[in-house]
């Protein structure tokens, strides 16, 4: 009788401790998740910024300007185009 009570007491203690441990683990993991999500948001923003920058550098107005002024290029016209058809 007495022995089973002692065993149950020990089991109860272990359960209680594991609960505490689990709680602790949840929180650490949640902190990590939170950090990862913040990072995700930051990277998303970074991606948007880079996408914008890429667009800014590749927009027609800029290409046109550089091609004409810096590279002395001219617009193509059909007479100087060899057309090939894909079939």
């Amino acid at each position, binding site marked *: 009788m007495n022995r089973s009570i002692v065993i149950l007491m020990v089991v109860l203690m272990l359960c209680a401790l594991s609960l505490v441990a689990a709680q602790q683990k949840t929180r650490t993991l949640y902190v990590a998740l*939170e950090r990862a999500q913040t990072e995700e948001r930051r990277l998303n923003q970074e991606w*948007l910024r880079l996408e914008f920058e890429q*667009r800014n550098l590749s*927009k*027609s107005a800029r290409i046109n300007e550089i091609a004409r002024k810096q590279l002395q290029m001219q617009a193509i016209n*059909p*007479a*100087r*185009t*060899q057309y090939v058809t894909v079939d």
Partner: protein
Amino acid sequence: MAQISFSSTPNLVLRLPMWRSRLVLFLMFVGFVALVIRAMWVQGFGNSFYEEKGNKATLRSIEMPASRGKILDRNGEVLATSLLAKAIIAFPDAIPDDLPKEKVSELAKLLEMPEAEVRKRMRSERNQVFLKRQVDLEVAKQIRQLGIPGIAQNNEYRRLYPEGEAMAHIVGFTNVEDKGQEGMELAREKDLVGQPGRRRVIQDRLGRYVENLGIISPPRDGADLQLSIDSKVQFLAYNEIKAVAEKHNAKGAGAVVLDVHTGEILALANYPSYNPNSRQNLSGEQLRNRVLTDTFEPGSTMKPFPISLALEKGLVQPNTQMAIGKSLVVGKKAITDTHPYGSLTVAEVVQKSSNIGTVKMAMQLEAQEMWELFQALGFGQAPEIGFPGAVAGRLRPYKNWVPIDQATMSYGYGLSASLFQVARAYSIFARDGELVSTTIYKTDQSPKGVRVISAKTAIQMREMLEMVTQTGGTATGAQTMGYRVGGKTGTAHKVEGKGYAGNKYRGFFVGMAPMSAPRIVVAVMVDEPRSGGYYGGIVAAPAFSNIVAGTLRNMNVLPDAAIKQMVDQEFKSQNIKPAALTGGNNKVATTQ
């Protein structure tokens, strides 16, 4: 002194009344009961006060950010995007009085504001003041490093428009609160706007969120919006009308490019424009998308419609000879042509844009059937393209028409339309008689076409429209290298006050290409050209030609006109040895 041993202390001999010990015992019991009750109170029934205290220390309700949707062109290029930025806020009470001067001047330099202004705001009577909004993250970081107490930063978004002025009238812009003010930003505000959410979390003493207690309201990012606009074509069209307006010292200009296969709008350009990235000095006049919101009398660009109806009804054939003469009197008004012609065929009436010839055909039509035709072409009704401010124009009911009305309407006076409406109406010639339903959103579905005239009439009219751009026509300047084009010029007196202004005009050219199988309709309008001519064939047709050439090349449409190949000659003229030409190296394939 008598010895008192411990065992014989007199206290033990004293016989005290029993109730005294009982009383002590009872008081102790009462004390414990009070403690138990208190404990139960604190932990159980009356703990809301403590719970609140505890929650205050650990529970947080935080915002979950949501961003505004992007606006993309048909190829997925970004036309409008939101980037994170910072609002710099000052709490004047928290700013120390002995703040070093250099810090303020450094702050002012980073904010690009006059130092006096920064100082004034920092000494404001209010609890908090914005020093500057929408500051770059990089700059915000430097400001934080200054470490001035009482200066805080808030997250906000900044809307950016990489295409700038070329696209300004379509995309529109948002205000500093990220709300749409013009264009698509305004029209689709509901879909674009993001809805920030909120959630509850537990925060530990290090400020980390350790547990999620649930979402109060989920965040919803704004939806991205894909337009049918092609940013390359748009840029090209904008540049062309800008060049034309500058060359002819015009008040403004506009152009529409319509893909007649899909009904998609490829470009919608307006000049003068504005830069949507800097919101200062933005006011009424320049913000309007004139192509859609301004109506005018379309002038001669209307002529092909009544003539088509006359052809359709079998009243005339393309080669029917008509006597033209110097003038034609309808009611009290004499109608004249810019050049007098003796006689012309129907095709030549279109080619040379004869008012008299057109009126002669139009007067054989019933007022009602002419009205029905205009109605079917979309005149007098606002086009359904989901753009704010698209106007209907004016088309009076035929019951109020007198003969002179019918006559003038046949050559485009007495009714009004936007450039977009005229462009759309021309789709009946390009699509073998069907009026196309248009859209400003990218679509994979084939558009609805409503038959207005027969395919036979449409093809006959196309031949006449092509003649307009050939020798003897009013718009030889519309000719495009490599592609057969066709269209119609228009030159209209501007209405001023109650009558027509003697020396103020609008020049138009509306046409299509390639004529062997039309793919696009392009309309160009030049408002009040003041130097170098004002006829549509002179001011608008060359811009049409350049826009057509660029757009068709961009769309990979094969040329349908004979071209004299210059590739070989050019290599020769540059003294490139024939060896370099072998092996197909001289072939310049289109890269798209």
